[in-house]
């Protein structure tokens, strides 16, 4: 049975210095507004829960700022650091290869869709690890033809 491990909200995200989605609200719902022209990224920090054993997926909940079924293209990456790992947190990151997928947006503006991306590349995550999850909209990707902002409302990390 699948288990929800984390619900990553817009307000718990943190951001790089440049090219990040705006933390905004639509109809009083907090959203991360991802641009259609620039690749933008944000992060969440979590601790890998005890008992974690199965494969993980990221389920992205998103709706668009226009009515169109053209797809958006998303990339999720995982950085899992075990105590004593040789990663210099002062100056380095160690994200695993991105996991990617695209989703057709809602034919009606405001209708939410969801995309499940299997986290095949999960940086050998293990219980107790200090973990960052990154989410980027690869706006320059040829599979991202949706010509408007995409509003992410929530990301669920699910264990199979």
């Amino acid at each position, binding site marked *: 049975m699948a288990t929800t491990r984390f619900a990553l909200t817009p307000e718990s995200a943190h951001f790089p210095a440049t090219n990040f989605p705006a933390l905004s609200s639509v109809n009083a719902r907090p959203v991360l507004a991802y641009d259609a*022209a620039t690749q933008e990224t944000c992060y969440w920090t979590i601790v890998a829960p005890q008992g974690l054993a199965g494969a993980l997926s990221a389920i992205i909940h998103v709706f668009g700022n*226009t009515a169109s079924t053209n797809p958006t293209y998303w990339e999720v990456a995982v950085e899992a650091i075990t105590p004593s790992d040789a990663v210099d947190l002062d100056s380095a990151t160690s994200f695993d290869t991105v996991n990617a997928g695209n989703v057709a947006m809602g034919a009606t503006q405001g209708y939410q869709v969801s995309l499940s991306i299997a986290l095949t590349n999960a940086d050998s995550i293990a219980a107790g690890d200090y973990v960052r999850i990154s989410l980027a909209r690869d706006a320059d990707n040829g599979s991202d033809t949706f010509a408007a902002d995409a509003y992410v409302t929530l990301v669920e990390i699910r264990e199979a």
Partner: protein
Amino acid sequence: MALIEIDRQAVRDHFMRRFGTALTKVILRTSIDNVDDWLDANLASLDAALPVAARTGFSLQEKTVLLCLVLLRRGGFPVDRI
């Protein structure tokens, strides 16, 4: 004079941010190229539509601003955006 690549891209990016469209990014960008090219091809026609005094008295920039202001109002936007 036609827009350079970076300016056409800026028009596309702003359009997507401000309005969005159900069409694809590629079709939007092609449309911008076509409008820009059409303006180049029809500048003489626009010029001919002006009174002689304006045709010879306005600079190219003034003619461009004039066109922009008329188009802004046609689109329902306030003219003080320029």
